[in-house]
């Protein structure tokens, strides 16, 4: 079912995606995500010079030319950025575009040669020509991948150090420059080897997208490299299978299977899709996970506020476990529509409140929880008044935000100076009086009397 040539393409793109993902991770972590873009564009004049010198399409010479051009471009960029007037981004743009322009000029020279016929090679360079992949290509990429893996294994610790703390590495006496050049050299080799298969832009993409996607799934470099390799290799497999028609997809609104999708761009779009999924659904860093965390946090804060409101209402008539009307709760504090419902729901699940009739009341557990909260709130207020010299009517809002984060340890520490004075706090664990009229009192319909 899968032809030999498709198998060849499959193996090559998978290997290329995986190794580009691994090497690209180092570039992305060092803030050089676009170095692949630079290298891929800068290769063009090198390819042309290689062609002009040998006089025909000879893979070795053109690859060598491309590698030399890539190294020259990176060196030139560093040199320009050292002038400090031209910033790094502009330096990259200048070298990239001028090298590429030089390549185009050289191409027109080649086209004017009597032998001519470089035009087909040109398009392959731009968009990639996966169908043209042969055994030599696979061997070249496999060799480079093996070399890269060997180097990475040998210098694992050093690369890790240089990636995360180059200054520290320099101080420790590691040859940061040489290690940087080592990684850049490997990236250059992979880029040039991959160009004929996937093309300029798409080679740049293979060096950025898998690492950027992998970054969402882990904080550890070893796992990130593995994830990037899987994402890159996976994009390679998926893209190749789709473009070969083995995994059929349809254009929206059409019956027939989309055919003859170009392999390189398809691979990239598969990578983009994986990236998008990572952005949305990765644990911890993904947008969905962040939204859920935020929602949980908001719910907990709202429930805290509900408990404190019930407690403060109870303080006024001395009946803490009394059911309270919704009107009284709404009067005591400004709630947004859904906030109160969610807060009540959450507090009920936690067993902090129960409903008598339709009215919420604090359970014994809830009273305990509310006491802790009110204590934190008021101790913080007293601390601000006492130590920071803030007026009593200005501390409520601040304490309202902080009360959820004060740990038991911190609360005990806040308690000590107040107990030493012996005025506001007589016994440990006691809930002090509020230094200002509580919101429940202020907003009583009869008017506050504190």
């Amino acid at each position, binding site marked *: 079912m899968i032809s030999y040539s498709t198998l060849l393409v499959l193996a090559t793109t998978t290997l290329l995606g995986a190794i580009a993902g691994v090497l690209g991770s180092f570039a*992305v972590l060092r*803030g*050089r*995500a*676009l170095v*692949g*873009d630079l290298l891929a564009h800068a290769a063009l004049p090198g390819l042309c010079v290689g062609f002009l010198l040998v006089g025909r399409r000879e893979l070795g010479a053109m690859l060598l030319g491309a590698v030399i051009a890539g190294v020259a471009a990176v060196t030139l960029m560093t040199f*320009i950025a050292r*002038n400090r*007037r*031209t*910033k790094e*981004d*502009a330096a*990259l*743009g*200048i070298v*990239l*575009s*001028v090298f*590429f*322009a*030089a390549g*185009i*000029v050289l*191409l*027109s*020279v080649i086209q*004017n040669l009597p032998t001519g016929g470089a*035009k087909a090679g*040109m*398009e392959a360079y*731009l*968009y990639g020509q996966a169908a043209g992949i042969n055994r030599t290509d696979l061997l070249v990429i496999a060799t480079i991948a093996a070399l890269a893996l060997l180097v990475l294994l040998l210098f694992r610790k050093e690369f890790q150090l240089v990636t995360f703390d180059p200054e520290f590495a320099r101080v420790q006496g590691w040859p940061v420059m040489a290690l940087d050049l080592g990684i850049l050299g490997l990236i250059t080799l992979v880029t040039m080897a991959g160009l004929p298969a996937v093309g300029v*832009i*798409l080679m*740049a*993409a293979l*060096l*950025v*997208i898998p690492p*950027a996607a992998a*970054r*969402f799934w882990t904080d550890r470099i070893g796992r990130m490299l593995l994830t990037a390799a899987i994402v890159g290799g996976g994009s390679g497999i998926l893209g190749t299978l789709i473009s070969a028609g083995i995994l059929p997809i349809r*254009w929206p609104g059409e019956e027939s299977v*989309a055919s*003859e*999708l*170009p392999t*390189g*761009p*398809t691979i*990239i*779009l598969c990578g*983009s899709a994986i*990236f998008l999924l990572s*952005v949305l659904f990765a644990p911890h*860093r*993904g*947008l969905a996970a962040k939204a859920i965390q935020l929602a949980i946090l908001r719910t907990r804060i709202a429930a805290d506020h509900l408990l404190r409101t019930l407690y403060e209402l109870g303080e006024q008539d001395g009946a803490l476990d009394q059911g309270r009307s919704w009107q009284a709760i709404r009067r005591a504090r400004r709630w947004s529509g859904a906030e109160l419902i969610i807060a009540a729901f959450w507090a009920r699940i936690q067993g902090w409140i129960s409903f008598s009739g339709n009215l919420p009341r604090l359970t014994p557990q809830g009273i305990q929880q509310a006491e802790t909260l009110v204590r934190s709130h008021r101790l913080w207020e007293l601390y601000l008044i006492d130590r920071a010299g803030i007026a009593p009517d200005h501390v409520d809002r601040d304490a309202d935000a902080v009360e959820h984060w004060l740990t038991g340890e911190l609360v005990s520490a806040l308690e000590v100076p107040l107990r030493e004075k012996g005025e506001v706090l007589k016994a440990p664990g006691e809930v002090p009086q509020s230094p200002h009229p509580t919101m429940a009192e202020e907003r009583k319909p009869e008017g506050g009397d504190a």
Partner: protein
Amino acid sequence: MWHWFAELDPNLQTAITVIVVATMTNVACALLGCFLVLRRMSLLGDALAHAVLPGLVIAFVFTGTLSLPAMFLGAVAIGVLTALLTEGLHRQAGVSEDASLGVVFTSLFALGVILIKRYGQDVDLDPDCVLNGMLEMVDDNVWQIGGFEVPRALVTILPVLILNLLFVVVFWKELLLGSFDPALATAMGFRAGLLHYTLMCLVALTTVAAFEQVGSILVVAMLIVPAATAHLCSDRLHIMLWLAAGFGALSALVGYAAALIFDVNTAGAMAVSSGIFYGAALFFSPRYGWVSRWLHQAALRLRIIAEDILGMIYRAEEWAAGRRLQPAEVFRGLGGGVWVRVVLSWLAWRDMIRRQPEGLELSPAGRLWAAAVVRSHRLWESYLVRHLGLPDDHVHEPAMRVEHYIEAPLQEQLAGALGAELLDPHGRPIPQLPAESESPNKDERQDQP
């Protein structure tokens, strides 16, 4: 009034048209490029140049033609989309800025390539044109306007150029402030975001308009390179804009000539010549070039040698009245070298020192200069001892370095901080400058230590 043009040789007509179109394209790009370079958004220009591809194809699919309004609409849509996506990924999802740029534009480009293949038969978007530009064929595609044959390229680029000029003129104040102090601009209530997106839209528009002429990558060159060249040559925004436009136009001219002479691709030659201008500026720009920096450093080094020589002679005279140093002693004292010899000759030529039979002697002008150097040296020594509590024997070395950089106002400040102190920590007098006394009475003071 166009008769003279119609009567010209057809080849010359083509040449003039190409140069005019290319100049307009380059100037339109260079104007915006200045702000990209200043705001460190050069790579966003690069990204947009790639990302407009799907915008063009989608615009074509929806409208069925590649008419100008459709193309411009597609460009603006994709420009805003690119800016929004990269910013969203950076701000909301915490992807680093360059990585988010890389992900977005490569993905959009891939989408564009697939769409081209899908609608390839219908869309008049030749990959070769995307890359190379069609500058040479500018005459082939003409519109009839009011009885004149006007190249389509001219009709495309002229409104964009005018729009860019208007943008710069109308938003001059905001651009100036926003480019140099975005925080202040925001604090003063300027809508930084609005400006950012307007700039993005214009870059996208310009890219699309220039795209047909010079090809997508060369748009990047025309956006960034002349602007960066101008940035090397000027510190003032309006001069930088003029220079950038000038370099853009010059690249068009030189590039076209080179392309004719060597029979190569025109747009490529233009971009390469702009790169050559950049290289020249990198070396020879009056303020920021390597050569001028090197010259400044060399001049400073020579001045330091000169001041060391003068100081040495001054101190020798002071140490024993009437003692004259021999040139050989000065060589040895300063470690020798050809530059000491050169500076010594220069000082003699400027009549700062005079070669007498018994040795070197300071002229009145040379004595004044030497006194200023020795004064700053000794003021600094006293300051270090008095106010920083350094021991006496540790202050000579730093003072040797610093003495060349303490100018008159700083000397006054130091003297003020030291009060009426007239002796340095080693007990030698601190020379006064002529404002106080024309020729300080050295012989009397030297008796004191």
